[in-house]
């Protein structure tokens, strides 16, 4: 007799997703995911950067300031895409996870597996975009390599959020609410300028956003400004992701019992 799959079969969910994507190699996947951030990097980092010059108080070219934030955003978006729309379709229309209920797979394993897959997907994006940043000559410190693992933490946090959102979605339109939050967060969570431009109370608001911490972490590492403050940013993402994962697990358990 066979042994039951470990960890509720989480790795098997990943394997299945890899199979479905076998038409595209990691490189074509990376190409699609870095397309958008490259456009931002060119338009804002290089284009607007030509007007801005150096960022006051930090003394790096504007493009080098924006690039690590775009890296964090790209990895966040990869994780979100995989866990919101894709997962929602499999959950509601394909009833994919329901079909796994009669196997030795567990619901916890399914959730963990999708999160793992989202992180893997973000990893491909992260490596791809870091290569782009390097090609533009925007790497300022060897610490920049660590921006990718930091981005995995971002992917974990937002992937877990996406799985919870997919569990509560009442239809495709529900994801418009996610966009309603994501777009302003992308624009205002210090992607394009330091948090010091804000007045005190706006600053508090921005600093409460998960993307702010993802960007702080990514930027601090990429610019080689490594200090204990980065641990706080990382801790924020771990806690946020952990809470979201717990919410997702509980919600999925309820959904699957129906």
């Amino acid at each position, binding site marked *: 007799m066979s042994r039951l799959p470990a960890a509720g079969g989480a790795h098997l969910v990943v394997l299945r997703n890899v199979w479905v994507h076998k038409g595209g190699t990691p490189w074509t996947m990376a190409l699609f995911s870095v397309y958008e951030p490259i456009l931002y990097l060119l338009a804002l980092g290089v284009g607007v950067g030509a007007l801005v010059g150096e960022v006051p108080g930090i003394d790096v070219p504007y493009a080098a300031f924006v690039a690590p934030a775009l890296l964090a955003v790209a990895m966040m978006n990869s994780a979100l895409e995989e866990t919101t729309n894709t997962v929602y379709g499999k959950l509601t229309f394909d009833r994919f996870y329901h079909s796994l209920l*009669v196997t030795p797979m567990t619901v916890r394993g399914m959730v963990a597996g999708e999160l793992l897959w989202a992180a893997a997907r973000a990893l491909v994006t992260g490596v791809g975009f870091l290569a782009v940043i390097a090609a533009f000559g925007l790497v300022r410190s060897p610490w920049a390599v660590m921006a990718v693992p930091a981005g995995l933490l971002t992917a974990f946090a937002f992937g877990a959020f996406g799985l919870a959102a997919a569990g509560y979605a009442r239809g495709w339109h529900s994801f418009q609410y996610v966009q309603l939050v994501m777009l302003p967060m992308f624009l205002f969570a210090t992607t394009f300028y330091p948090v010091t431009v804000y007045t005190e109370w706006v600053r508090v608001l921005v600093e409460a956003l998960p993307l702010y911490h993802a960007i702080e972490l990514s930027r601090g590492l990429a610019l080689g400004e490594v200090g204990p403050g980065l641990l706080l940013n990382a801790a924020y993402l771990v806690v946020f992701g952990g809470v979201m994962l717990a919410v997702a697990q509980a919600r999925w358990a309820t959904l699957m019992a129906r």
Partner: protein
Amino acid sequence: MALIEAEGLEKRYPGTDFAAVAGIGFRVERGEAFGFLGPNGAGKSSTMRMLACVSQPSGGSLRILGEDPVVHGRALRARLGVVPQDDALDLQLTVRENLIVYGLYFGLSLKRMRAKSAELLEFAQLADKAGERVEHLSGGMRRRLTIARSLVNDPEILLLDEPTTGLDPQARHILWDRLFRLKSAGVTLILTTHYMDEAEQLCDRLVIMDKGLIADEGTPRELIDRHVTREVLELRFPPGEQEQAAEKLGGDVEVLPDRLLCYADDGDEVLTRVTEVGLRPLTALVRRATLEDVFLRLTGRSLTD
């Protein structure tokens, strides 16, 4: 030891007072083909979900392969095969990949599944479709693939929820043939159906369910002997004249929306009486009693609801 033993088994869903399964008891022995018959909403699917260790009983006791499904659900699921009502195949994968991936979910190795999938494709008569995407298969092929998929782990018990609903007659016969083969190979089959011919073809023993309860249990022959006569005379009258005709005729008559069923050991005798009392039915047919008559007798009221 019976493979499955249920006693006072109940299923209630949260937020409803209504019991989908309201206390049923049955035993399934090794190698048997056991059927659950009943109209829609009788509680068949809820029972099947409990047997598949997917949903927990709300009351009563259930033992599957000698174990408690609430405690050992995961280990038990590894020993069961399930053919759900909606095939729930992985539409993004090919026929062969569906089998291989499904085997991995059971903890089987890739190497083992490569060999096993070839064997199962042969069994399901899908060898020439191995590389096709599931989307492109016909309903009958999908069903056969779902059955092949449920066999990846060589299950001791195979649960089939309405295995031939929605299939054309040819596809049904191919499917029945495959199920016969499994049965002769010693697999215990448990199925739900609302097709009486299917139940008579496949089931050694069955229970008829209605409103969450078991109305009766036995072999198809036993049930026919117990509840209906040897023959049945079917009479059709113009709409609105059925009730009148039934009264006039008297005897053991069941009034259905579209026809009268007269139960008798000699159908022709009743037919003679029909003309004697001056009734002029549109059509009249004497036939042997089937499981369908039993079914209509026991659950007829809820069918007309």
